[in-house]
């Protein structure tokens, strides 16, 4: 037993048990589910960024071959179908905003390119597509407001007629008076306006939904690509159909990447249900890649002006900022989280006496926003880290020394930041030192000289981030079966993270049951009693600790049974390595055998129910604060502007690590996404709201060869907010990489006098900046 625990125990780099299935094409994703009598739906999307819908004529489409039904807003109104209603800051005590709920189909106004207008259902997908081309929509285009600055401009076009100014909601945190006072007296004030570019998650699996209505029970089964099946059930049952949740089963089987984009309900999830009920056949919808770029929720898109106040010695006295976050055409369920995390983490890892941020969430004629890997945390980090880099230039200080001087010292933990958030733990100075060592910072000058010899500019960049990970409570169940094997029923949802592996490792170690016999179930509201899914780096802290709680309960429940079987007093038993032992004797019994006894068909002790199972709970109250130091080096070919990321080293404090391989994978994937945002990825609309980056020929994602070998390690500073000492690791890379890469870029461009640069730093823009600077110099 010891050997088993050793190999598969906590912390071991166990390879994902899911991989065999995924790599050999045996995964079961939503689009793999095809039901008897399957029908197929296709969306008619608005080709206009903003337009009045004068009429919709479905006559020709309805007459087309194979068409089974066509839904428009009028049909939905007739069936009293509700809208998707977002949570708003006002629900948590903030000032009232404009709750721009999303109808499943637009009735009289299209508010973004890709807005859903009609849903065409036919015998096959091809026939549905052909018929969708025959739906005649008469649009009267309206002026569009595409950027947040256009949307808040005086007399801007209104996206909702009863909401002049186009603000969805506002948020503020910190102490304005105190902060303004500090700034008035400060020796130096450093100010920056930056644009955090709009990006798209582009999960490898595009979204899909398949609904099957059962008339005999007036109930639905919905297969959907969701990060949060129980939440999807609540929202669709409660808001859209207004039915008890017992009448809706949501299944999210294998899901191929989410990144927050699959965290909330989309119109299609409910449209397939309406259509299935109407035609009494299952209806499937699968997004094409083009539809995904048009119709998926996007991320980031923030314009922010920030300032740091310093005294003479380089000590930060205050921080203040005004941010505007685009929310797009409608407010999605968790859109408020983006603004919330960006205001909470304003002051980053720095010990700043005063701070204030005012944030506006702004409606625009673009695809709606959802949390995207980090959701506001990367935006907050990007602002404060860019400000620090700028300050180092203005104050003529070394940026690392400037950070060291201002880090929250370990001795001040727990530390309350300017927004009132309490960081429980962290050793920022130490982690930075470790990272500098691993990155061979001392060798940078030599490497820069080498690059120069080859005609290239080399730059060094560092960023330090802290984020708030984990939210809400959750539940994890453990259930033994009559053969003594155990199943994990997870309230969290793995869509690439590898939960089936890491949770089994943990249970194997805690309960001493063989790793390979542990079954893992997730993503089905009929199987999993309750759950809240996975987002916000919550699974290990909330799910992991709930699982520990469940395992502890199993031991407690099993102990009296073991005592009876060993003919000993429960108080004399200890549980170790999967066995109950009578202390001081060699009498012992394995938990798996005790579990079997719970399934005896007769003669169970009167105080014992049939079966051994437990429901563990844990709440992220308070959450945890993963943090880390990311450094990188880039090389620029001055003749072409081509940028290469040549070195990258990260030391992440993600608390106690449960599986190094999976945790590293999380960091690596996050860095790739952060690198994508910094150097390539950009969703671009023209002034009429047309999407210009509508395919992978125009929207560039990083590829393996664009990423250097990633160096680094974990600094395991245990979190004090949970028994396992874990911190979330999912969002670290996407948060640390953009400011680190942009710091390196600005460092490389320093000889040219280039002081500011917005993401993405494409070769074309870098070359243009270099050219302009050289021309100026000449």
């Amino acid at each position, binding site marked *: 037993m010891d050997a088993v625990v050793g190999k598969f125990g906590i912390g071991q780099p166990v390879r994902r048990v899911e991989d065999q299935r995924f790599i050999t094409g045996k995964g079961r994703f939503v689009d793999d589910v095809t039901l008897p009598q399957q029908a197929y739906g296709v969306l008619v999307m608005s080709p206009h960024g903003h337009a009045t819908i004068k009429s919709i004529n479905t006559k020709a489409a309805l007459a087309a071959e194979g068409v089974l039904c066509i839904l428009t807003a009028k049909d939905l109104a007739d069936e009293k179908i509700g809208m998707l209603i977002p949570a708003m800051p006002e629900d948590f005590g903030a000032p009232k905003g404009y709750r721009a709920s999303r109808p499943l189909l637009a009735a009289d106004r299209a508010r973004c390119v890709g807005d859903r207008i009609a849903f065409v259902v036919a015998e096959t997908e*091809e026939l549905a597509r*052909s018929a969708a081309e025959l739906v005649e929509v008469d649009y009267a285009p309206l002026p569009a407001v595409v950027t947040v600055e256009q949307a808040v401009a005086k007399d801007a076009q209104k996206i909702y007629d009863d909401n002049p100014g186009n603000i969805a909601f506002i948020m503020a945190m910190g102490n304005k008076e105190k902060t303004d006072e500090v700034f008035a007296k400060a020796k130096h004030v450093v100010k920056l306006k930056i644009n955090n570019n709009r990006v798209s998650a582009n999960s490898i699996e595009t979204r899909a939904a398949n609904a099957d209505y059962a008339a005999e029970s007036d109930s639905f089964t919905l297969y959907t690509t969701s990060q949060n099946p129980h939440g999807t059930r609540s929202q669709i049952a409660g808001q859209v159909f207004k039915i008890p949740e017992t009448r809706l089963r949501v299944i999210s089987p294998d899901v191929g990447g989410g990144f927050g984009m699959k965290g909330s309900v989309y119109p299609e999830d409910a449209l397939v249900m309406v259509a299935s009920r109407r035609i009494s056949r299952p209806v499937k919808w699968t997004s094409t890649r083009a539809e995904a770029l048009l119709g998926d929720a996007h991320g980031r898109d923030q314009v922010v002006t920030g300032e740091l106040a310093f005294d003479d010695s380089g000590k930060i006295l205050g921080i203040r900022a005004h941010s505007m976050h685009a929310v797009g055409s409608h407010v999605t369920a968790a859109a408020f989280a983006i603004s919330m995390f960006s205001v909470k983490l304003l002051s980053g890892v720095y010990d700043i006496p005063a701070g204030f941020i005012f944030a506006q969430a702004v409606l625009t004629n673009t695809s709606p926003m959802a949390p995207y890997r980090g959701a506001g945390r990367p935006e907050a980090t990007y602002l404060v880290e860019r400000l620090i880099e700028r300050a180092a230039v203005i104050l003529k200080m070394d940026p690392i020394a400037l950070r060291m001087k201002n880090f929250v010292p370990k001795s001040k933990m727990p530390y309350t930041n300017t927004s009132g958030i309490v960081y429980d733990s962290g050793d920022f100075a130490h982690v930075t030192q470790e990272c500098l060592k691993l990155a061979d910072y001392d060798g940078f000058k030599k490497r820069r000289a080498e690059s120069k010899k080859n005609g290239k500019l080399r730059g060094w960049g560092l960023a330090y981030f802290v984020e708030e990970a984990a939210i809400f409570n959750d539940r994890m169940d453990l259930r033994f079966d009559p053969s003594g094997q155990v199943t994990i029923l997870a309230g969290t949802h793995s869509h690439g993270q590898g939960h089936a592996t890491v949770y089994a490792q943990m249970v194997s170690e805690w309960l001493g049951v063989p790793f390979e016999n542990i079954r893992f179930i997730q993503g089905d509201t009929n199987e999993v009693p309750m759950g809240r899914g996975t987002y916000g780096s919550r699974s290990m802290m909330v799910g992991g600790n709930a699982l520990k709680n469940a395992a502890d309960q199993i031991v407690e429940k099993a102990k009296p049974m073991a005592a009876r079987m060993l003919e000993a007093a429960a108080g004399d038993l200890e549980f170790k390595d999967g066995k109950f032992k009578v202390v001081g004797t060699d009498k012992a019994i394995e938990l798996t055998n005790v579990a079997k006894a719970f399934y005896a068909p007769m003669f169970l002790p009167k105080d014992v129910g049939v079966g051994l199972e437990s429901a563990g709970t844990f709440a992220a109250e308070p959450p945890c604060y993963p943090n880390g130091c990311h450094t990188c080096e880039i090389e620029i070919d001055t003749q072409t502007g081509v940028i290469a990321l040549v070195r990258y080293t990260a030391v992440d404090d993600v608390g106690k690590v449960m599986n190094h391989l999976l945790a590293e994978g999380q960091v690596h994937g996050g860095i790739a996404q952060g690198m994508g945002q910094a150097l390539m990825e950009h969703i*671009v609309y023209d002034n009429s709201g047309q999407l210009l980056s509508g395919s992978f*020929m*125009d929207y560039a994602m*990083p590829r393996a060869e664009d990423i250097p070998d990633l160096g680094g390690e974990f600094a395991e500073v245990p979190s004090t907010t949970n028994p396992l000492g874990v911190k979330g690791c999912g969002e670290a890379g996407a948060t640390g990489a953009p400011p680190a890469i942009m710091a390196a870029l600005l460092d490389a461009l320093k000889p040219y006098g280039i002081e500011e640069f917005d993401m993405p730093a494409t070769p074309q823009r870098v*070359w243009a900046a270099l050219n302009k600077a050289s021309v100026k110099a000449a």
Partner: protein
Amino acid sequence: MKPAAFAYAKAHSIEHAVELLGKHDGEARLLAGGQSLIASLNMRLASPPMLVDINDIAGLDRIDMTDGHVLIGAMARHADVERSSIIAKHAPLISRAMPHIAHAAIRNRGTIGGSLAYADPAAELPACMVALGAKLEIAGLQGRRVVAAEDFFKGMFETALGPNDMLVAVHVPAATAQTRVGFEELARRHGDYAIVGLAAAAQVAGAKLSDVRLVYFSVGDAPVRARGAESAIAAGDIDGAAAALSKDLLPTADLESSAEVKLHLAGVLLRRVVRQLQEARA
């Protein structure tokens, strides 16, 4: 499946394929590797009534040496051309260009004939064929004919192929001991459509280059020979060649790059490629 409905026929010979094309008034399309055609069908940018599949025509994928020429059959997959020792030895420019053509998965399916017949102005192979002075063999209802690469590419997605024609093979003059080639491409990421690219060939005589052919791609509707620069290079005047590009090329802006940027990058590539031409043959 995403395309609109279409009919499908499998051709068993070149003549059969041409005959099938003729039956559909030029509306039918040939299906080779499908790497561009299927995407445009899926996006419903094209909806031909019939696809004529030429994948099973025997011998259409051969790569051979004949009479001082390298013959590459229209159905030769990029991946096979990339790995061919005949190509490496006798048409090294094509070998150099191959890794820039999209990605391994696309090269496994995509064909040389498909790429040439499609005539994407950002594609590598049309420029290579012009640089090498290749001849393209075409089968039509009236029989076979041969067209020089320079006359074959007419414009954006436009070639000398008529609606009932099929590109059968390409004949590339084999490299000699005096042949020098160069290839450079700038793309947003490796494998993406080129921002600017340059395929070049020349003959070396002592320290001088002659018969210099500099063919740019992704700077116009079709491969563009930079004739002013070619003469300057033959005269050993690299700066003059770079200056000549502003007359040789008339690039148009795209979403990412202005015309000025493209012209500048063309100059950068020119110097890099000329350096390759001057290197001794390995």
